[in-house]
């Protein structure tokens, strides 16, 4: 147990720092994914024929290829591409931090899934509400803010909650490209002390705690988003 103590001879502090960076990446990736998802859902529903097809290609490919492969591909190709563009434009090549790269890559992956979730949720809104908003002469942005987003939220929350939980667990994949989040920290600690079970179970408990705490908040957000709607059998 003294191995897990938070002061330096123990590894508890490192594990907690790892958890913190995992959460940072998950929050960033989920937020970026939401942004991409809203754009993607709009593109798929209301975009022109070419935009529709391009978004379909994006969601199909990203959902068919393993996250690990995408992470490697985007991690290497992305940093390489940005540096080449910078050099061509006459700037010094920059070193992209693991945190930013991780957020961008996981956000790109999450975007494909949240596109589908949000598209389904927008389709579940009674279409009369959107037609009414149009009839009032609302601009598309105002309609998004006042009608579409609030009305789709109750339908989107179960799917988005799932995506959030997936995002927290997908951060572990960044261990493979050498980013120091919880899983890699755990492996380093376990390798150094040979106490494999202690550390992996401790890290598992941290992830599980994150999931359970998230579930509490998700339930609260869901109740808030569904306020004023008829109750269902499930709730």
């Amino acid at each position, binding site marked *: 147990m003294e191995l897990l103590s938070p002061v330096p001879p123990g590894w508890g502090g490192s594990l907690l720092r790892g958890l913190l960076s995992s959460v940072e990446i998950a929050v960033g990736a989920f937020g970026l994914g939401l942004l991409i998802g809203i754009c993607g859902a709009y593109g798929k529903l209301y975009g022109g024929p070419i935009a529709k097809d391009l978004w379909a290609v994006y969601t199909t490919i990203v959902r068919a290829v*393993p996250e*690990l*492969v995408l992470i490697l591909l985007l991690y290497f190709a992305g940093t390489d591409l940005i540096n080449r563009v910078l050099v061509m434009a006459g700037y010094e090549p920059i070193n992209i931090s693991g945190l930013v790269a991780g957020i961008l890559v996981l956000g790109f992956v999450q975007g494909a899934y949240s596109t589908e979730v949000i598209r389904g949720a927008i389709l579940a809104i009674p279409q009369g509400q959107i037609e009414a908003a149009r009839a009032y002469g609302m601009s598309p942005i105002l309609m998004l803010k006042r009608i579409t987003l609030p009305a789709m939220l109750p339908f989107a929350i179960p799917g988005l909650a799932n995506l959030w*939980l997936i995002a927290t667990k997908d951060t572990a994949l960044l*261990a493979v490209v050498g980013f120091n989040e919880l899983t890699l920290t755990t*492996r380093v600690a376990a390798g150094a002390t040979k106490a494999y079970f202690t550390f992996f179970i401790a890290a*598992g408990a941290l992830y599980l705690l994150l999931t359970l705490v998230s579930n509490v908040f998700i339930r609260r957000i869901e109740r808030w988003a569904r306020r004023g709607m008829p109750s269902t059998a499930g709730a």
Partner: protein
Amino acid sequence: MSVDAPVMTPPARAPSWLKPHRIGLLAVALALVIAATLFMRWDWLPRYYGLALQGIWRTIWILVVTCALGIMLAVPLGLAQAAGPWWLAAPARGFCTMIRGTPLLLQLWLLYYGLGSLFPQFPWIRHSELWPYLRQAWPYAVLSLTLSYAAYEGEVMRGAFAGVPRGQLEAARAYGMSRWKIFRRIWMPQAFYRALPTLAGETVLQLKATPLVATITVVDIYNVAGRVRQETFITYEPLLLLALVYMVITGIIVFLFRRLESRIPVKIG
């Protein structure tokens, strides 16, 4: 006003997905593929051809074995949660929550490094018949992927078992079927039909989880791509080909499940 408006029957022509803009997009895609074949380096392919086929075979093998074993575990897990007494339902739910709440990579490393460092300490394990297998990496890969699939599918099967209408089971009981026969003929098939579309998606997710086994030295197709990258310093080409391989396998899985779904005789409400 005419009552029967003339029904417009469009004349037979190109399939509906082939619209003018699609031809343009296809041309762009084709140009990209040709550019990739011409300007990228593929000279490593002949050398790694055999290894790649072996890797693909191993990926598919792991996928099939873990899905088959996982679904066998998932049925009792789902049944215990849907209809079991509390002392069966509670551990089943706990198992599903625990596996679904932690990353697969962590579980894999826990089993491989944890058990792998624990086993050699017991002489009777080292002298047992199983030891040659326990020293390899793939049993740990299969075990952890199976447990993961079982936990996710246990949750799916719970919903599916609970979703079968009560009346069906009551009717079966009224016919005098035994409990086992009700399960085999009524409950189980209907639950499977309900779960099938979800299972298709989950199987694709399982395929996408298989490259994780490369981190514990199982030589699947992902590992082969990594080896090409290390030995030839070619970064993008193996990864692009790898993505293509996974997309093709995904396509095959989706196709097979669609065939399976189309065999369901009636639509159940």
